[in-house]
């Protein structure tokens, strides 16, 4: 049994309470949501902190998937399982269900949260790639009020985000646009493992032509990355295998994978290419109603 170093524990009863605690305790404290990333790091003593602020009681306040005007709002404490099972979410963004099916295992999905996943800022994290693909924005709350940042602004490096010590992520907002669909592709060494590479694609059609497209990659750089060059290459074109190949090639060129236990950089570059093509192909097929 691995045991963490001593720490103080407090259970927040509301978002305001949690932010008040963060104000007081600053960088000596950490929020704990599902705990599947933080607890192992504490047990391995990679993270030593003085105070742990448990926000699981905020699930009532921050656990939701809401359809708002022109966007879907997902509370930061929404658990993986809820994301997996949300029909409105799957209908608007099938990429979520694709991704949730291959995130960890049911035990983790029962506890882990959207906010916890994003805030961990692991470069291989799946929901980060999903949110990047969908051009989501993050609502960060502090004692002074809310601020909204893009995914690109949210990530500052591996395991680093734009959230200050006295703030917390409370919501993700995803714009809903007509005529689109999305898909997620992941290669892992074993079920439930982190991605070797994963790729999200979202695509919108105007008649026979692509009006917009976005691709988000995980595990091939310091953070999940969107590839604007792919969007530029696809816009205004009719979807075709040649076009997807071109997009794949752009993805392969525009990432910075490293050699590690999960695979060689060359292989990951190849996967970025291959999975981009697959995800785009599937997203387009979904728009045409050819595939789920």
């Amino acid at each position, binding site marked *: 049994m691995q045991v963490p170093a001593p720490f103080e524990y407090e259970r927040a009863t509301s978002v305001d309470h949690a932010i008040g605690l963060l104000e007081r305790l600053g960088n000596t404290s950490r929020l704990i949501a599902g705990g599947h990333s933080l607890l*192992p790091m504490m047990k391995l003593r990679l993270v030593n902190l003085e105070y742990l602020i448990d926000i699981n009681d905020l699930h009532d306040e921050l656990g939701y998937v809401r359809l708002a005007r022109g966007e879907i709002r997902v509370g930061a404490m929404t658990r993986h399982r809820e994301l997996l099972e949300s029909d409105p979410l799957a209908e608007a963004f099938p990429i979520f269900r694709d991704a949730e099916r291959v995130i960890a295992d049911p035990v983790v999905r029962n506890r882990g949260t959207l906010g916890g996943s994003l805030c961990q800022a692991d470069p291989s994290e799946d929901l980060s790639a999903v949110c990047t693909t969908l051009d989501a924005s993050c609502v960060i709350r502090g004692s002074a009020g809310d601020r909204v940042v893009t995914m690109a602004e949210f990530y500052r490096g591996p395991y680093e985000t734009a959230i200050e010590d006295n703030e917390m992520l409370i919501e993700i907002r995803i714009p809903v646009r007509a005529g689109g669909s999305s898909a997620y592709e992941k290669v892992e*060494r*074993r*079920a439930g493992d*982190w991605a*070797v590479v994963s790729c999200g694609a979202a695509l919108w059609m105007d008649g026979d032509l692509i009006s917009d497209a976005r691709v988000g990659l995980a595990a091939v750089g310091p953070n999940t990355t969107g590839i604007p060059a792919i969007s530029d290459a696809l816009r205004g074109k009719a979807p075709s295998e040649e076009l997807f190949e071109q997009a794949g090639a752009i993805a392969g060129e525009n990432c910075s994978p490293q050699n590690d*236990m999960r695979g060689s950089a060359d292989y990951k570059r190849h996967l970025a290419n291959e999975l981009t093509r697959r995800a785009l192909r599937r997203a387009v097929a979904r728009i045409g109603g050819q595939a789920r």
Partner: protein
Amino acid sequence: MTTLDDRPLGFINNDEKPVGHGRMLRKEDPRFIRGKGKYVDDIQLPGMLHLAILRSPVAHARIVSVDTMAAMSHPKVKAVVTGADLVEKGLAWMPTLSNDVQAVLATDKVRFQGQEVAFVVAEDRYSARDALELIDVEYDVLPPVVDVRKALAADAPVIRDDLDGKTDNHCFDWQTGDEAATNAVFDKAEVVVTEDIVYPRVHPAPLETCGCVADYESVDGQLTLWTTSQAPHAHRTIYALVSGLPEHKIRVIAPDIGGGFGNKVPIYPGYVCAIVASLVTGKPVKWMEDRSENLTSTSFARDYIMRGEIAATRDGKILAIRTNVLADHGAFNGVAAPLKYPAGFFGVFTGSYDLEAAFAKMTAVYTNKAPGGVAYACSFRVTEAVYLVERLVNCLAYELDVDPIELRIKNFIRPEQFPYATKTGWVYDSGNYEAAMRLAMELAGYDELRTQQAEKRLKGELMGIGVSFFTEAVGAGPRKDMDILGLGMADGCELRVHPTGKAVVRVSCMSQGQGHETTFAQIVAEEIGIAPADIQVVNGDTDNTPFGLGTYGSRSTPVSGAAAALVARKVRDKAQIIASGMLEVSVADLEWQKGSFHVKGDPSKSVTIQDIAMKAYGAGDLPEGIEGGLEAQICYNPENLTYPFGAYICVVDVDPGTAQVKVRSFTAVDDCGTRINPMIIEGQVHGGLTDGVAMALMEMIAFDEAGNCLSSSLMDYLLPTALEVPDWQTGHTVTPSPHHPIGAKGVGESATVGSPPAVVNAVVDALKPYGVRHADMPLTPSRVWDAMQGHPRPPV
């Protein structure tokens, strides 16, 4: 209560049989599945303290100083012990199972990342762990030896400078077979195929990590050690020899064990530390390692770099096999194998084939990695041997462009050749290889699979069919050849039939979950006619079981199982004499059937074993010369090993775009001789196959250039899940062992031995359109993709 309807299909009702071999639910399972198993970590004693070990963060360094002052002042710490403290007690070093020495706590140098440096004893587990961070060790970091191929380089740093006159990292050389004869065959052979084959370092990773509770009672000088041990008796003797405590004052108890796979054969420094801690503090002390400690410091398996060569005629007659092996033994040679066999039973690398000659040469070296080289369900290195030969035969099939099964069948040792003496000196007891191979082909639908594969290849789809055929050598072993640290590998067994006809059988081997409480009850039941439910099996307590060498190398059924059958027959012989008195006929006039003796020709005149038991303990006279009671003890010395075998066929699909491997189906035909409980056999096979798929596809203990272990958690060391494996299809043939009392051969490791080559052969077969003849494990998507690009890479 279990009803017949709940039981698996094909269940034979043991009540009708009425006793003995056959399908039967495991007697121990109600305890396990209800969470009522009792493991070492469940043991709580009054006043018990907790021990935590400080481990080296680096692979190779000289210890400059160890400052324990701050740790000592922690309010809940009772003791802090360093290597220097152990030197004073003469306990800083201990023997390994291969007669090397290993540091209990490092004194001069640390030699691998994770090596034990000091320990803390505290009131609770948290405080003990906290206090480790208060110990200040200054290291003078030395260059490590990580690449095994460079271990013998002239400028390589010398790891084992603790050994007198040691000037290099050479561990041992070993060879087997006839080199000249083999070279002669190779020189004239029409076809020679050479392949470099790596079996990477893997880890047993049992669910329960290692640990113990040591309780030394100073008043009567009694040490009781509850411990995760697959070999309690061997451990007790070694503790006596190392510590100087008299052996009769040491009681080793292995309670329920949560998986062993060889990981719990060695004595680890942690056990010795806990004993020292109890001696020092006068309190019981518990040490349970955590997952990272288990993965980084306890015995690994494999780590063989093999160059294999196979010689054949152009029409596919295999003539000879030759191999040169470089073995990585880590920092201390902790191999668990009979002393005369430093490479275990690797000598069976000749496989299941009738050869003209064979030769193997091995060089073993020290590196700055965790020590060991235990079994991991490997039957003493048979795993590496089988992998080598089964890959080589496939490479030959590739070069000759023939079907790999046809090639195998053509070269099998034929049934009439048994007992068969191999060119490396092993005598295979019995076998009918072609029958098992053909059954596997039939179950798998081999011909249809090949047709389907051809169709898929035309469409650019990558389907692979992999075959392996293995022969294992298990059941160590004959006293004349085999011992571990001087202890012969014979097993004792004791059977007591109580007055009411219930019984207790005490065995020396030790279950780690294999179902001994059921299997051994069934073995005895078959012989003596008492229902398995009425026979208690006791194991794991040295005060309450006869001496024997424990459970590993699939030796429980071949050795202790034979002992159990023979002791039951000994009791039955005595019962027959008592029965002759009860029925007033001569012994020769009695016939034995289903638990009772009756007078020949008159079945109405009979006494049951229960009647006889009551008589044996009851009032009244017994036949002349017969003592009261109905019990016996024996020690069984096997005359040979047993040689189970099997034919495996694996089908995989490889995604051409991502190089991901999906195991679509797996057919396993096993022949372990007489089958005692087919359900337990199937369970063992299922587990071993899962293990084998994982080793082939994902498991590996890796190191970086500095000697840091990169596989120190289960996030990095990938264990398989149900999603990685198909529904297993099992079949069997039965070729009893001629020398085992009930013809059983052992099956615990068969599937782990046989499945990795089947999976690798399948993946390589799938990649045939890419011209791939060999690719090393673990076949992760990245490594498969490398092979598809024409540059398969060795994993080390």
